[in-house]
Protein backbone atom coordinates (compact mmCIF):
# COMPACT_ATOMS: atom_id res chain seq x y z
CA UNK A 1 0.00 0.00 0.00
CA UNK A 2 1.65 3.27 -1.04
CA UNK A 3 2.19 5.81 1.69
CA UNK A 4 1.13 9.44 1.54
CA UNK A 5 4.03 11.38 0.04
CA UNK A 6 5.82 13.56 2.51
CA UNK A 7 6.18 16.46 0.10
CA UNK A 8 2.46 17.14 -0.16
CA UNK A 9 2.00 20.06 2.18
CA UNK A 10 -0.97 19.38 4.39
CA UNK A 11 -1.05 22.30 6.74
CA UNK A 12 -2.17 21.84 10.27
CA UNK A 13 -4.80 24.07 11.75
CA UNK A 14 -3.29 26.62 14.15
CA UNK A 15 -3.91 25.89 17.81
CA UNK A 16 -7.07 27.42 19.14
CA UNK A 17 -8.82 27.61 15.78
CA UNK A 18 -11.38 24.94 15.25
CA UNK A 19 -13.50 24.17 12.26
CA UNK A 20 -17.20 23.46 12.76
CA UNK A 21 -16.49 19.79 12.06
CA UNK A 22 -13.84 19.53 14.77
CA UNK A 23 -15.91 21.49 17.24
CA UNK A 24 -18.81 19.20 16.65
CA UNK A 25 -16.79 16.12 17.54
CA UNK A 26 -15.85 17.55 20.90
CA UNK A 27 -18.95 19.24 22.17
CA UNK A 28 -21.86 19.51 19.78
CA UNK A 29 -23.82 17.09 17.63
CA UNK A 30 -22.10 16.58 14.27
CA UNK A 31 -22.96 19.20 11.71
CA UNK A 32 -24.97 18.01 8.75
CA UNK A 33 -23.39 17.75 5.32
CA UNK A 34 -25.50 20.71 4.32
CA UNK A 35 -24.20 22.87 7.17
CA UNK A 36 -20.62 21.88 6.41
CA UNK A 37 -21.05 22.76 2.75
CA UNK A 38 -22.57 26.12 3.68
CA UNK A 39 -19.49 26.72 5.83
CA UNK A 40 -17.27 25.83 2.87
CA UNK A 41 -19.25 28.22 0.72
CA UNK A 42 -18.64 30.94 3.27
CA UNK A 43 -14.90 30.39 3.15
CA UNK A 44 -14.26 27.70 5.78
CA UNK A 45 -12.39 25.35 3.49
CA UNK A 46 -11.40 23.07 6.34
CA UNK A 47 -14.99 21.85 6.41
CA UNK A 48 -14.39 20.41 2.96
CA UNK A 49 -11.91 18.05 4.61
CA UNK A 50 -14.70 16.68 6.81
CA UNK A 51 -17.01 16.31 3.82
CA UNK A 52 -14.24 14.44 2.03
CA UNK A 53 -13.86 12.04 4.96
CA UNK A 54 -17.59 11.37 5.02
CA UNK A 55 -18.19 10.89 1.33
CA UNK A 56 -15.08 9.93 -0.59
CA UNK A 57 -15.58 6.20 0.02
CA UNK A 58 -19.13 5.93 -1.33
CA UNK A 59 -18.32 8.36 -4.13
CA UNK A 60 -15.32 6.31 -5.18
CA UNK A 61 -17.41 3.12 -4.98
CA UNK A 62 -20.02 4.67 -7.24
CA UNK A 63 -17.44 5.87 -9.76
CA UNK A 64 -15.46 2.65 -9.79
CA UNK A 65 -18.61 0.66 -10.53
CA UNK A 66 -19.75 3.20 -13.09
CA UNK A 67 -16.44 3.25 -14.97
CA UNK A 68 -15.16 -0.24 -14.16
CA UNK A 69 -11.75 1.35 -13.75
CA UNK A 70 -10.19 2.18 -10.38
CA UNK A 71 -7.68 4.65 -11.77
CA UNK A 72 -10.34 6.56 -13.67
CA UNK A 73 -12.63 6.46 -10.64
CA UNK A 74 -9.94 7.98 -8.46
CA UNK A 75 -9.18 10.68 -11.01
CA UNK A 76 -12.86 11.55 -11.37
CA UNK A 77 -13.40 11.58 -7.60
CA UNK A 78 -10.52 14.03 -7.30
CA UNK A 79 -12.06 16.27 -9.95
CA UNK A 80 -15.44 16.10 -8.19
CA UNK A 81 -13.95 17.43 -4.96
CA UNK A 82 -11.98 20.06 -6.85
CA UNK A 83 -15.16 21.22 -8.55
CA UNK A 84 -16.93 21.34 -5.21
CA UNK A 85 -14.21 23.70 -4.04
CA UNK A 86 -14.21 25.71 -7.23
CA UNK A 87 -17.98 26.01 -7.54
CA UNK A 88 -18.75 26.21 -3.83
CA UNK A 89 -20.44 29.57 -4.40
CA UNK A 90 -23.12 27.86 -6.47
CA UNK A 91 -24.25 25.66 -3.58
CA UNK A 92 -27.72 26.76 -2.61
CA UNK A 93 -29.20 27.37 0.81
CA UNK A 94 -31.93 24.85 0.17
CA UNK A 95 -29.54 22.39 -1.42
CA UNK A 96 -29.07 18.74 -0.59
CA UNK A 97 -25.40 17.97 -0.40
CA UNK A 98 -25.35 14.37 -1.63
CA UNK A 99 -27.60 15.19 -4.57
CA UNK A 100 -25.32 18.08 -5.48
CA UNK A 101 -22.21 15.93 -5.13
CA UNK A 102 -23.56 13.15 -7.33
CA UNK A 103 -24.81 15.72 -9.78
CA UNK A 104 -21.23 16.98 -10.11
CA UNK A 105 -19.94 13.39 -10.20
CA UNK A 106 -22.28 12.60 -13.03
CA UNK A 107 -21.01 15.59 -15.02
CA UNK A 108 -17.39 14.66 -14.33
CA UNK A 109 -18.02 11.06 -15.32
CA UNK A 110 -19.64 12.24 -18.56
CA UNK A 111 -16.54 14.30 -19.30
CA UNK A 112 -14.44 11.22 -18.64
CA UNK A 113 -16.51 9.02 -20.93
CA UNK A 114 -16.42 11.65 -23.67
CA UNK A 115 -12.64 11.87 -23.49
CA UNK A 116 -12.28 8.12 -23.19
CA UNK A 117 -14.36 7.59 -26.31
CA UNK A 118 -11.98 9.76 -28.34
CA UNK A 119 -8.84 8.39 -26.69
CA UNK A 120 -9.67 5.17 -24.87
CA UNK A 121 -7.82 4.63 -21.64
CA UNK A 122 -5.93 1.42 -21.23
CA UNK A 123 -7.54 -0.64 -18.50
CA UNK A 124 -5.05 -2.34 -16.27
CA UNK A 125 -6.23 -5.92 -15.75
CA UNK A 126 -4.75 -5.80 -12.27
CA UNK A 127 -7.44 -3.26 -11.43
CA UNK A 128 -10.08 -5.87 -11.92
CA UNK A 129 -8.16 -8.49 -10.00
CA UNK A 130 -7.54 -6.13 -7.13
CA UNK A 131 -11.16 -5.17 -7.21
CA UNK A 132 -12.15 -8.79 -7.02
CA UNK A 133 -9.64 -9.60 -4.31
CA UNK A 134 -10.90 -6.87 -2.06
CA UNK A 135 -14.38 -8.26 -2.22
CA UNK A 136 -13.38 -11.69 -0.99
CA UNK A 137 -13.51 -12.16 2.73
CA UNK A 138 -12.04 -15.25 4.31
CA UNK A 139 -15.48 -16.54 5.13
CA UNK A 140 -16.97 -15.93 1.74
CA UNK A 141 -17.70 -18.93 -0.34
CA UNK A 142 -16.62 -19.43 -3.91
CA UNK A 143 -20.28 -19.24 -4.81
CA UNK A 144 -20.58 -15.75 -3.36
CA UNK A 145 -17.44 -14.70 -5.17
CA UNK A 146 -18.79 -16.03 -8.43
CA UNK A 147 -22.08 -14.25 -7.84
CA UNK A 148 -20.28 -10.98 -7.27
CA UNK A 149 -18.26 -11.39 -10.43
CA UNK A 150 -21.34 -12.32 -12.38
CA UNK A 151 -23.18 -9.31 -11.05
CA UNK A 152 -20.28 -7.00 -11.85
CA UNK A 153 -20.13 -8.36 -15.37
CA UNK A 154 -23.87 -7.86 -15.73
CA UNK A 155 -23.55 -4.30 -14.43
CA UNK A 156 -20.75 -3.69 -16.90
CA UNK A 157 -22.94 -4.79 -19.78
CA UNK A 158 -25.73 -2.36 -18.96
CA UNK A 159 -26.14 0.92 -20.77
CA UNK A 160 -24.38 3.66 -18.90
CA UNK A 161 -27.70 5.38 -18.15
CA UNK A 162 -29.11 2.21 -16.64
CA UNK A 163 -25.97 1.57 -14.65
CA UNK A 164 -25.98 5.13 -13.41
CA UNK A 165 -29.55 5.11 -12.14
CA UNK A 166 -29.06 1.73 -10.49
CA UNK A 167 -25.89 2.76 -8.73
CA UNK A 168 -27.47 5.94 -7.49
CA UNK A 169 -30.72 4.42 -6.33
CA UNK A 170 -29.35 1.18 -4.90
CA UNK A 171 -25.73 1.48 -3.97
CA UNK A 172 -25.65 5.11 -2.89
CA UNK A 173 -28.94 4.76 -1.05
CA UNK A 174 -30.35 7.97 -2.47
CA UNK A 175 -34.08 8.44 -2.39
CA UNK A 176 -35.90 8.66 -5.69
CA UNK A 177 -36.38 12.36 -5.04
CA UNK A 178 -32.59 12.73 -4.76
CA UNK A 179 -31.96 10.53 -7.78
CA UNK A 180 -34.43 12.67 -9.71
CA UNK A 181 -32.53 15.76 -8.64
CA UNK A 182 -29.22 14.25 -9.79
CA UNK A 183 -30.64 13.04 -13.09
CA UNK A 184 -32.64 16.22 -13.60
CA UNK A 185 -35.91 14.42 -14.14
CA UNK A 186 -39.17 13.93 -12.26
CA UNK A 187 -39.43 11.56 -9.31
CA UNK A 188 -41.78 9.35 -11.30
CA UNK A 189 -39.33 9.19 -14.21
CA UNK A 190 -36.49 8.31 -11.84
CA UNK A 191 -38.55 5.48 -10.36
CA UNK A 192 -39.43 4.11 -13.79
CA UNK A 193 -35.85 4.34 -15.00
CA UNK A 194 -34.56 2.57 -11.90
CA UNK A 195 -37.08 -0.21 -12.34
CA UNK A 196 -36.22 -0.66 -16.01
CA UNK A 197 -32.55 -0.71 -15.15
CA UNK A 198 -33.16 -3.35 -12.49
CA UNK A 199 -34.97 -5.53 -15.00
CA UNK A 200 -32.22 -4.99 -17.55
CA UNK A 201 -29.70 -6.09 -14.94
CA UNK A 202 -31.70 -9.19 -14.17
CA UNK A 203 -31.91 -10.09 -17.86
CA UNK A 204 -28.20 -9.47 -18.30
CA UNK A 205 -27.44 -11.52 -15.18
CA UNK A 206 -29.45 -14.52 -16.39
CA UNK A 207 -27.99 -14.19 -19.87
CA UNK A 208 -24.44 -14.37 -18.54
CA UNK A 209 -25.39 -17.28 -16.30
CA UNK A 210 -26.71 -19.09 -19.34
CA UNK A 211 -23.56 -18.31 -21.33
CA UNK A 212 -21.43 -19.67 -18.53
CA UNK A 213 -23.41 -22.90 -18.43
CA UNK A 214 -23.06 -23.45 -22.15
Amino acid at each position, binding site marked *: *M*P*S*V*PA*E*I*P*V*LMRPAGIESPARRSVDTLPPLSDHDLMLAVRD*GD*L*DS*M*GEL*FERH*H*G*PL*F*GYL*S*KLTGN*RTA*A*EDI*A*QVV*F*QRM*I*KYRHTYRDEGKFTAWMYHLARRCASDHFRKASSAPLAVDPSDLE*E*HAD*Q*SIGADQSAQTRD*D*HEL*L*RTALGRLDRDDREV*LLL*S*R*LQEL*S*FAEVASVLECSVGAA*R*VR*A*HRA*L*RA*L*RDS*YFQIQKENLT
Partner: protein
Amino acid sequence: MNCQACTERIAELADQKLDRETEALVRSHLDGCESCRREFDELSRLIASLDALPSPAPSPALRAKVMGSIESEKLTLRMESEWSERMRSAAPGRPARGASWIQVLVSGLGVAALVVLGFVLGERNATQHQLADLRVRVDTMGQLVEQSVLQKRTAGDRLETVLTAARTTQPDERLIDGLINSLAFDPSVNVRLNALSALYSHADQEVVKAGVLACLPRESNPLVQISMIDFLVAAKAREASPELRKLSLDTNANGDVRDSARRAIDLL
Protein backbone atom coordinates in the same frame (compact mmCIF):
# COMPACT_ATOMS: atom_id res chain seq x y z
CA MET B 1 -53.17 -1.20 -8.99
CA ASN B 2 -52.05 -2.64 -12.31
CA CYS B 3 -48.99 -4.83 -12.95
CA GLN B 4 -46.75 -2.00 -14.16
CA ALA B 5 -47.49 0.24 -11.19
CA CYS B 6 -46.92 -2.71 -8.89
CA THR B 7 -43.57 -3.82 -10.29
CA GLU B 8 -42.24 -0.28 -10.33
CA ARG B 9 -42.67 -0.26 -6.56
CA ILE B 10 -40.84 -3.53 -5.95
CA ALA B 11 -37.54 -1.89 -4.98
CA GLU B 12 -39.24 0.39 -2.51
CA LEU B 13 -41.26 -2.51 -1.13
CA ALA B 14 -38.06 -4.51 -0.63
CA ASP B 15 -36.53 -1.51 1.13
CA GLN B 16 -39.68 -0.99 3.21
CA LYS B 17 -39.83 2.58 1.98
CA LEU B 18 -43.46 2.59 0.89
CA ASP B 19 -46.11 4.29 2.91
CA ARG B 20 -48.66 1.96 4.49
CA GLU B 21 -51.37 2.64 2.00
CA THR B 22 -49.23 2.00 -1.07
CA GLU B 23 -47.63 -1.04 0.51
CA ALA B 24 -51.05 -2.52 1.16
CA LEU B 25 -52.02 -1.94 -2.46
CA VAL B 26 -48.84 -3.54 -3.78
CA ARG B 27 -49.11 -6.55 -1.49
CA SER B 28 -52.73 -6.98 -2.41
CA HIS B 29 -51.79 -7.01 -6.09
CA LEU B 30 -48.96 -9.46 -5.48
CA ASP B 31 -51.31 -11.83 -3.70
CA GLY B 32 -53.48 -12.05 -6.74
CA CYS B 33 -50.89 -11.91 -9.55
CA GLU B 34 -48.47 -14.80 -9.94
CA SER B 35 -46.48 -13.07 -12.67
CA CYS B 36 -45.80 -10.02 -10.49
CA ARG B 37 -45.02 -12.24 -7.50
CA ARG B 38 -42.40 -14.08 -9.55
CA GLU B 39 -40.95 -10.75 -10.66
CA PHE B 40 -40.94 -9.55 -7.06
CA ASP B 41 -39.04 -12.67 -5.94
CA GLU B 42 -36.45 -12.37 -8.70
CA LEU B 43 -35.88 -8.66 -8.32
CA SER B 44 -35.78 -8.85 -4.54
CA ARG B 45 -32.99 -11.42 -4.74
CA LEU B 46 -31.17 -9.27 -7.26
CA ILE B 47 -31.55 -6.21 -5.04
CA ALA B 48 -30.15 -8.15 -2.10
CA SER B 49 -27.17 -9.25 -4.22
CA LEU B 50 -26.61 -5.70 -5.45
CA ASP B 51 -26.71 -4.35 -1.92
CA ALA B 52 -24.17 -6.98 -0.85
CA LEU B 53 -21.77 -6.11 -3.66
CA PRO B 54 -18.61 -4.86 -1.96
CA SER B 55 -17.06 -1.56 -2.93
CA PRO B 56 -13.34 -1.13 -3.44
CA ALA B 57 -11.50 1.44 -1.35
CA PRO B 58 -9.61 4.33 -2.93
CA SER B 59 -5.87 4.62 -2.51
CA PRO B 60 -4.41 7.07 0.04
CA ALA B 61 -3.29 9.20 -2.90
CA LEU B 62 -6.85 10.46 -3.34
CA ARG B 63 -6.85 11.97 0.13
CA ALA B 64 -3.43 13.56 -0.42
CA LYS B 65 -4.53 15.09 -3.71
CA VAL B 66 -7.82 16.47 -2.41
CA MET B 67 -6.22 17.82 0.76
CA GLY B 68 -3.58 19.42 -1.48
CA SER B 69 -6.35 21.08 -3.48
CA ILE B 70 -7.96 22.37 -0.30
CA GLU B 71 -4.67 23.82 0.92
CA SER B 72 -4.03 25.31 -2.50
CA GLU B 73 -7.41 27.02 -2.46
CA LYS B 74 -6.72 28.36 1.01
CA LEU B 75 -3.43 29.73 -0.28
CA THR B 76 -5.21 31.39 -3.18
CA LEU B 77 -7.78 32.91 -0.83
CA ARG B 78 -5.01 34.21 1.38
CA MET B 79 -3.25 35.74 -1.62
CA GLU B 80 -6.48 37.32 -2.81
CA SER B 81 -7.12 38.72 0.62
CA GLU B 82 -3.63 40.19 0.85
CA TRP B 83 -3.96 41.52 -2.65
CA SER B 84 -7.24 43.23 -1.81
CA GLU B 85 -5.64 44.67 1.30
CA ARG B 86 -2.81 46.09 -0.78
CA MET B 87 -5.26 47.46 -3.29
CA ARG B 88 -7.11 49.24 -0.51
CA SER B 89 -3.94 50.61 1.04
CA ALA B 90 -2.80 51.89 -2.34
CA ALA B 91 -5.76 54.23 -2.37
CA PRO B 92 -6.82 56.17 -5.46
CA GLY B 93 -5.36 59.63 -5.64
CA ARG B 94 -2.00 58.46 -4.48
CA PRO B 95 0.83 59.08 -6.99
CA ALA B 96 0.73 55.98 -9.18
CA ARG B 97 4.30 55.76 -10.28
CA GLY B 98 5.91 52.47 -11.19
CA ALA B 99 8.38 52.47 -8.34
CA SER B 100 5.71 52.82 -5.64
CA TRP B 101 3.73 49.96 -7.12
CA ILE B 102 6.83 47.82 -7.12
CA GLN B 103 7.15 48.32 -3.39
CA VAL B 104 3.50 47.55 -2.83
CA LEU B 105 3.55 44.43 -4.91
CA VAL B 106 6.85 43.06 -3.67
CA SER B 107 5.96 43.42 -0.02
CA GLY B 108 2.48 42.03 -0.46
CA LEU B 109 2.57 39.17 -2.85
CA GLY B 110 6.15 38.04 -3.01
CA VAL B 111 7.04 35.73 -5.80
CA ALA B 112 3.77 35.58 -7.68
CA ALA B 113 3.45 39.34 -7.81
CA LEU B 114 6.99 39.72 -9.02
CA VAL B 115 6.34 37.36 -11.86
CA VAL B 116 3.32 39.44 -12.74
CA LEU B 117 5.44 42.52 -12.42
CA GLY B 118 7.36 41.44 -15.48
CA PHE B 119 4.28 42.27 -17.48
CA VAL B 120 4.00 45.77 -16.20
CA LEU B 121 7.65 46.81 -15.93
CA GLY B 122 8.18 49.89 -17.98
CA GLU B 123 4.71 51.14 -17.36
CA ARG B 124 4.83 54.38 -15.49
CA ASN B 125 1.17 54.72 -14.60
CA ALA B 126 -0.84 52.01 -12.94
CA THR B 127 -4.26 52.40 -14.43
CA GLN B 128 -7.38 50.71 -13.12
CA HIS B 129 -7.30 48.47 -16.15
CA GLN B 130 -3.83 47.26 -15.28
CA LEU B 131 -4.86 46.65 -11.69
CA ALA B 132 -7.79 44.52 -12.81
CA ASP B 133 -5.48 42.62 -15.11
CA LEU B 134 -3.05 42.00 -12.27
CA ARG B 135 -5.80 40.64 -10.09
CA VAL B 136 -6.81 38.20 -12.78
CA ARG B 137 -3.23 37.12 -13.20
CA VAL B 138 -2.80 36.54 -9.48
CA ASP B 139 -5.89 34.34 -9.54
CA THR B 140 -4.31 32.39 -12.34
CA MET B 141 -1.15 32.03 -10.31
CA GLY B 142 -3.08 30.31 -7.56
CA GLN B 143 -4.55 27.89 -10.06
CA LEU B 144 -1.18 27.22 -11.58
CA VAL B 145 0.34 26.54 -8.20
CA GLU B 146 -2.45 24.10 -7.63
CA GLN B 147 -1.98 22.43 -10.95
CA SER B 148 1.78 22.33 -11.15
CA VAL B 149 2.72 21.70 -7.55
CA LEU B 150 -0.03 20.41 -5.36
CA GLN B 151 -2.09 18.16 -7.55
CA LYS B 152 0.68 15.84 -8.58
CA ARG B 153 1.24 13.27 -5.93
CA THR B 154 4.88 12.41 -6.29
CA ALA B 155 7.95 14.40 -7.19
CA GLY B 156 8.30 12.03 -10.15
CA ASP B 157 4.88 13.03 -11.46
CA ARG B 158 5.67 16.70 -11.09
CA LEU B 159 9.07 16.22 -12.70
CA GLU B 160 7.39 14.54 -15.61
CA THR B 161 5.09 17.56 -15.97
CA VAL B 162 8.07 19.90 -15.99
CA LEU B 163 9.96 17.77 -18.50
CA THR B 164 6.90 17.66 -20.75
CA ALA B 165 6.68 21.43 -20.52
CA ALA B 166 10.37 21.66 -21.43
CA ARG B 167 9.81 19.61 -24.56
CA THR B 168 7.03 21.87 -25.78
CA THR B 169 8.43 23.73 -28.74
CA GLN B 170 6.05 26.67 -28.59
CA PRO B 171 5.10 27.17 -24.96
CA ASP B 172 2.43 29.70 -24.20
CA GLU B 173 2.38 32.23 -21.41
CA ARG B 174 0.51 29.86 -19.13
CA LEU B 175 3.11 27.13 -19.52
CA ILE B 176 5.94 29.53 -18.72
CA ASP B 177 4.01 30.75 -15.69
CA GLY B 178 3.68 27.13 -14.63
CA LEU B 179 7.43 26.56 -14.92
CA ILE B 180 8.16 29.68 -12.88
CA ASN B 181 5.70 28.54 -10.26
CA SER B 182 7.35 25.15 -10.10
CA LEU B 183 10.67 26.91 -9.62
CA ALA B 184 9.15 29.02 -6.87
CA PHE B 185 7.00 26.53 -5.00
CA ASP B 186 7.90 22.96 -5.77
CA PRO B 187 9.31 21.23 -2.70
CA SER B 188 11.61 18.98 -4.77
CA VAL B 189 15.08 20.31 -5.64
CA ASN B 190 15.15 18.09 -8.70
CA VAL B 191 11.89 19.51 -10.00
CA ARG B 192 13.02 23.07 -9.35
CA LEU B 193 16.31 22.48 -11.18
CA ASN B 194 14.53 20.98 -14.16
CA ALA B 195 12.03 23.84 -14.22
CA LEU B 196 14.94 26.25 -14.32
CA SER B 197 16.60 24.24 -17.05
CA ALA B 198 13.36 24.35 -19.07
CA LEU B 199 13.26 28.12 -18.70
CA TYR B 200 16.66 28.54 -20.39
CA SER B 201 15.00 28.40 -23.81
CA HIS B 202 12.97 31.47 -22.86
CA ALA B 203 15.65 33.41 -21.01
CA ASP B 204 15.25 36.33 -23.39
CA GLN B 205 11.75 37.03 -22.13
CA GLU B 206 11.49 39.73 -19.49
CA VAL B 207 8.87 37.81 -17.55
CA VAL B 208 11.18 34.81 -17.27
CA LYS B 209 14.11 36.91 -16.03
CA ALA B 210 11.84 38.67 -13.53
CA GLY B 211 10.43 35.33 -12.40
CA VAL B 212 13.79 33.71 -11.77
CA LEU B 213 15.02 36.83 -10.03
CA ALA B 214 11.93 36.80 -7.84
CA CYS B 215 12.52 33.18 -6.90
CA LEU B 216 16.15 33.71 -5.90
CA PRO B 217 15.61 35.31 -2.46
CA ARG B 218 13.26 32.55 -1.31
CA GLU B 219 15.47 29.72 -2.53
CA SER B 220 17.41 27.98 0.22
CA ASN B 221 19.17 25.18 -1.63
CA PRO B 222 22.72 26.24 -2.67
CA LEU B 223 22.67 24.09 -5.81
CA VAL B 224 19.50 25.76 -7.05
CA GLN B 225 20.72 29.18 -5.94
CA ILE B 226 23.93 28.83 -7.95
CA SER B 227 21.98 27.54 -10.96
CA MET B 228 19.67 30.55 -10.73
CA ILE B 229 22.64 32.90 -10.59
CA ASP B 230 24.12 31.21 -13.67
CA PHE B 231 20.77 31.62 -15.38
CA LEU B 232 20.60 35.32 -14.62
CA VAL B 233 24.11 35.79 -15.99
CA ALA B 234 23.27 33.84 -19.14
CA ALA B 235 20.11 35.92 -19.53
CA LYS B 236 22.14 39.10 -19.07
CA ALA B 237 19.72 40.21 -16.41
CA ARG B 238 21.45 43.37 -15.26
CA GLU B 239 18.51 44.21 -13.05
CA ALA B 240 19.61 41.27 -10.88
CA SER B 241 22.71 43.12 -9.66
CA PRO B 242 21.18 44.56 -6.45
CA GLU B 243 19.82 41.19 -5.41
CA LEU B 244 23.11 39.49 -6.25
CA ARG B 245 24.99 42.09 -4.24
CA LYS B 246 22.76 41.44 -1.29
CA LEU B 247 23.32 37.71 -1.63
CA SER B 248 27.08 38.11 -1.93
CA LEU B 249 27.07 39.94 1.42
CA ASP B 250 24.67 37.57 3.17
CA THR B 251 26.66 35.80 5.85
CA ASN B 252 23.97 33.18 6.22
CA ALA B 253 24.34 32.16 2.58
CA ASN B 254 26.53 29.28 1.51
CA GLY B 255 30.12 30.33 0.65
CA ASP B 256 29.91 28.97 -2.90
CA VAL B 257 26.67 30.85 -3.41
CA ARG B 258 28.26 34.10 -2.24
CA ASP B 259 31.22 33.52 -4.57
CA SER B 260 28.88 32.82 -7.47
CA ALA B 261 26.94 35.99 -6.73
CA ARG B 262 30.16 38.04 -6.69
CA ARG B 263 31.32 36.55 -10.00
CA ALA B 264 27.90 37.21 -11.50
CA ILE B 265 28.03 40.87 -10.50
CA ASP B 266 31.37 41.21 -12.30
CA LEU B 267 30.06 39.46 -15.39
CA LEU B 268 26.90 41.54 -15.51
